[in-house]
C-alpha cells in the first residue's frame, strides 16, 4: 500500500498489506494474519523443491541487479559438507530507496519467515541480517521479532520445532553505502573494511567466512512466503508487461511528488500511473522534468522517456535506464539539474571505498569539475572532460559504484546540456561559492 497513504486501487498489495498496521509486528499478530504457514509448508517439502517453486515464480532480486532468485539459490553446492550461510541484505542506502525499511518496520516476522524458508532451501543453519547502522527503529523492531521467534520455537535448534537448525543474527552496519554491495557486506560482516571483493570466487563458492553464501535483498526474501503460500503460478501471473518480470515490486517514490511513499505494483505497470496518479504528481503548477527510476545509480530519464514507460526490468531498459532498486526520484521543472547531478556525484565520492584508482580519484575529480561549473568558472571543455572521465570510470573497476557515479553525469549531460551551458556561459548565476 502507498504507505504512509492508504492503498491506491491500482496497487497490487502483497508485501505492503500490513504497512501501518502495528498489530502485524508481534509474533502473535503475525500468526493471526496467517504468518509462518508458508514456513510450515516449505519444511514439508524437499529443499530443492522449495528452490524450484521460487524458480518457477520468476522472482528476481529486488536489491538492484534483478538476478533470478531461484537460480541464485541453485548455485549453492549440495552436500559440500561445509557450513552454508544466508545473508539478508538490509543495508538499504541507495539514494531514493526506502522500501526495505518499511518491510522491517511493519512486517519483521514476514522477513524472518522469508529468511527461514530461504535458509532451508539453501541448507544454511545460520542467517545474518545486515541492517544499516542508521536504521535505529528497524534494528530495534527486528531484534525484538527475532527474540520472539526464538522464544516461540520458530528459530533455534529446530525450525518450527521440526526442521533443521537455524540461527538468526542481526548485525548492525556503521555507515557505509558500499556495504550494500554483497561482497563489501561480507567483508564488513567479517569485521573488515567494507571493500568489495573481486569475483570469482562467487559467494556461492566462497562467501562470508570463505564458505558458501547466498545474499538476498530484504524485499526479495519477504516475497518468498507469499510465493510458497499462493504458488509459483499465482506470482508469475502478476505480470502486465514482459513475462521475464513477474510479481509485485515496491517502489519508493520521493522528490517532487505530492504523496511520496512506497507503492506496490504489479510488474509492468506504467511509470506515469505511479508518478501522476498514485503519488499525486507534481506540486501545483509544476511539470515533470526528470526521473531517476531505480535508485540514484541508474541513468536519468527526461519527461519524454517517462511517457509510456512500463515499470519492469525490460521496460525501463528500453527507455535507457534501469529498474534498479525501485527508488523513483522525481524532479519537477524547478530543479537545477546541474546542482542535483553534482550532489549525486558527491554521494559517490564520499562512499567510494578507495580501492580502485578510477573510482577513488575519478569520483572526487568529477565533483571538483562540477563544483567549478556551478561556481561560474567552468570551461567549455569541461563537459567533454566529464564525459571522458565517465567513460574511463565505466566498466573498469571492481564493483559498479564507479559506473554509478558516471551514469547520472552521462545521462544528465545528454539530456540537460542546456543547463550546463547556462552555467558555462554565465547566463545562469553561480549556484556555489567559487572554489
Amino acid at each position: 500500500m502507498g504507505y504512509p497513504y492508504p492503498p491506491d486501487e491500482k496497487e497490487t498489495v502483497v508485501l505492503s498489506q500490513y504497512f501501518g498496521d502495528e498489530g502485524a509486528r508481534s509474533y502473535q499478530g503475525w500468526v493471526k494474519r496467517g504468518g509462518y504457514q508458508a514456513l510450515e509448508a516449505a519444511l514439508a517439502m524437499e529443499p530443492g523443491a522449495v528452490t524450484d517453486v521460487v524458480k518457477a515464480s520468476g522472482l528476481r532480486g529486488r536489491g538492484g541487479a534483478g538476478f533470478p532468485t531461484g537460480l541464485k539459490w541453485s548455485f549453492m553446492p549440495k552436500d559440500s559438507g561445509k557450513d552454508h550461510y544466508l545473508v539478508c541484505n538490509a543495508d538499504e542506502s541507495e539514494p531514493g530507496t526506502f522500501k526495505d525499511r518499511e518491510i522491517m518496520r511493519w512486517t519483521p516476522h514476514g522477513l524472518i519467515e522469508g529468511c527461514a524458508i530461504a535458509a532451508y532451501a539453501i541448507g544454511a543453519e545460520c542467517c545474518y541480517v545486515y541492517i544499516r547502522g542508521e536504521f535505529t527503529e528497524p534494528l530495534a523492531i527486528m531484534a525484538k521479532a527475532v527474540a520472539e521467534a526464538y522464544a516461540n520455537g520458530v528459530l533455534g535448534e529446530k525450525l518450527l520445532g521440526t526442521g533443521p537448525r537455524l540461527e538468526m543474527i542481526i548485525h548492525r552496519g556503521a555507515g557505509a553505502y558500499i556495504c550494500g554491495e554483497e561482497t563489501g557486506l561480507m567483508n564488513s560482516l567479517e569485521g573488515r573494511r567494507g571493500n568489495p571483493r573481486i569475483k570469482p570466487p562467487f559467494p556461492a563458492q566462497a562467501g562470508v567466512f570463505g564458505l558458501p553464501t547466498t545474499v538476498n535483498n530484504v524485499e526479495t526474501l519477504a516475497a518468498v512466503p507469499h510465493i510458497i503460500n499462493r504458488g509459483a503460478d499465482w506470482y508469475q501471473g502478476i505480470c502486465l508487461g514482459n513475462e521475464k518480470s513477474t510479481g509485485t515490486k515496491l517502489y519508493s517514490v520521493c522528490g517532487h511528488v505530492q504523496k511520496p511513499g512506497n507503492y506496490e505494483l504489479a510488474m509492468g505497470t506504467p511509470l506515469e500511473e505511479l508518478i501522476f496518479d498514485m503519488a499525486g504528481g507534481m506540486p501545483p503548477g509544476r511539470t515533470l522534468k526528470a526521473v531517476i527510476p531505480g535508485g540514484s545509480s541508474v541513468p536519468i530519464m527526461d519527461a519524454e522517456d517517462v511517457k509510456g514507460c512500463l515499470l519492469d526490468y525490460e521496460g525501463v531498459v528500453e527507455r535507457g535506464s534501469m529498474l534498479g532498486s525501485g527508488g523513483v526520484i522525481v524532479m519537477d521543472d524547478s530543479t537545477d539539474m546541474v546542482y542535483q547531478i553534482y550532489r549525486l556525484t558527491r554521494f559517490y565520492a564520499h562512499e567510494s571505498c578507495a580501492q580502485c584508482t578510477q573510482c577513488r580519484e575519478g569520483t572526487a575529480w568529477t565533483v571538483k569539475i562540477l563544483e567549478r561549473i556551478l561556481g561560474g568558472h567552468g570551461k567549455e571543455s569541461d563537459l567533454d572532460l566529464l564525459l571522458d572521465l565517465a567513460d574511463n570510470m565505466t566498466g573498469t573497476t571492481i564493483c559498479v559504484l564507479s559506473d554509478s557515479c558516471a551514469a547520472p553525469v552521462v545521462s544528465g549531460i545528454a539530456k540537460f546540456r542546456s543547463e550546463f551551458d547556462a552555467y558555462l556561459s554565465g547566463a545562469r548565476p553561480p549556484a556555489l561559492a567559487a572554489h
Partner: protein
Amino acid sequence: MSDALVTVTIDGIEVQVPRGTPLIEAAKQAGILVPHYCYHPSLPAPAVCRMCLVEVEKAPKLLPACVTTVTDGQVVHVNSDAALKARESVLEFLLINHPLDCPICDQAGECELQDYVFQEGRAATRYADYAKRFNPVEDFGPDVLYIPNRCILCTRCVRFMEAVAEDPVLNVSERGDRSYIGIFPDAVLDHEWAGNVVDLCPVGSLVSKDFLHKARAWDLDRTASICPGCSQGCNMTIDTRDNVVVRLRPRPNMDVNRHFMCDTGRQDYRWMNRGDRIEAPLIRAGDKLQAVDWASALDRLADTLRGADGKAVILASARASTESLGMTHRLLDGFELTAAVRVPTGHEAPLASIPNLALREERTPNVAGAELTGYTRAWDEALDQAVSAQVVVVLDEELAPDEFDRVRTAGTVVVLGTVDHPAYQAADIVLPIATMAEEHGSYVNRDGRAQVYRQAKASPGMARPAWWVAAEAAGRLAEGRAVPATAGDAIVMLGQSIPALAGLTYQSMGFTGRPVASAAASGVES
C-alpha cells in the same frame, strides 16, 4: 602435468602455460610486460590499481591481467586501443594528486609511475588548477618514511605487513580520495623484514631514511650478490656509487628469498666501505713487519710452508668464499691439518608466511661451504691445537686479543685479512685480501645451494681474493701444480677433489644458484 597446459595468444604471440596462471604471468612468458602497480608475484593480488586491464576477446569488459587466469584458446590484446586508453586514464587519475617532485624524489629513475607515464601517459594533465591532496610526511619506523602525497594506494605495503610478515601495523585509513596509509600512533614499523616495504613501493612514497637523498638511481652501479649476513643466503644486489656501497637490496630468487631480505642483512653494509684496510703484503723482518710486493710475500709464505711439517691449523671465517676456504685448505694439504670456522649466532627471525625463509641463527653465509671443504665448527678445539702448531693461518676472521695471544705461540702465524689490526704486528706474514664485495666468489647456503656473488667494487691497495693468495702460494710449493686464474676456475678445480662440488661451475650456478651434490654423499676429504 602437460595436459594441464593451455594455449593463449597474447598480442599475436602464442604461449603455453599451466592452467590457472594469471594472464600477467603468461604475458611475461610471451615477453610482454603488462603495466601494473598493485600486483606483485609474492603478494596476494587485490586487483585494485586497475592498471593491468587488458582486452580479452569475447569478454564484455576489459579484464585485470593480474587476477584473470588463462583459459585455453584465449586471445588477449595488451596493447589494443581500449586497453591503452584504460591505462592512460589510470595514469592520469594517479597523477592528479601526485606531486611533481621527481627532481628531489629518491625513487626517480626507478619509479614505476614515472616510467609508465613516460611510456604511455597523456602529454598534458587535464587536472589543471585544482589543489592536490596534501598530507604531512610520517615517520613509520627506524628506517622508513611515508610521504603520503606520492602514494598511489596500491596497498602493497599493507599487504606485505598483513599477509607476508603477518604483523599488520599498516592500514588503509579513511575512504574515497581521503584515504592514506596509516600506522597506529605509538606503533613502529620495526619488524625484522619491514624494510621490504620500501622496495615494494612502486613509487617514492615509502623511502629509506638511510638512503634518503644519498644517490640518484641512474648514478648507481648494481651488482648481483649474496647477502653475507646469515646462512639463508638471500640473493641481493649491491648498489654502489663511485666505488662506495650505498645500499643493499633483495634480488628475486623464488627458491631462497622470493623478493625479500631482512633488515639486519640490508643494513649491514658499512663495513664494506671501511678505509682502515691492510694495504700491502707484510712480512716479518726482525721485530718488524715490512711491506713487500706480492711475489716476495708469496715466496716467503711458500718458503715457510716448505720448511715446516707436523701440525697446521686454519682459523677461518665462514664468510669466506668456498673458493677461498677450499684453496686455503688445499695449501696446507701436507700437514696434519685442523681447520675450523667460527659461526657467530643471533636470534632467528622468520618471515612468517614464506616457508623456509628467516634471518638465521648462524650469522655467516658459508657454513655449509666450509664444511664441504673440510672445516668443522669446533673453533675452541682448533684454537687449542693452534697453540702448539707449526703453522696457523687466520683466514678473514678477526681474532679477539686473548685469542691472538694464544695463537702467537705457534711456529708461524699467517694472517689473510681485510681490516688492519694492531695485534697483527705479532704475526709473521700478513696478506691483504678482498672483502666479498670486492671479489667474485660463491657460498653454499644452509640448504646446500651454491650461489655466486659478483665483484661490486674495486679492492683497495694491493688486496687480492684469498683464493688467489692461497692458490699462488700452493703453485710455488709444488712445481707444475695448476693455478686457477679466476674464481670460476677455482671452484672447478675444487670440484675435482671434492665430490659434493663436482661439476659446479659459475655458469651452472647462474644468477639463482644450484644445489650441490647431496650434502650427505659429500665425504669431506681432509
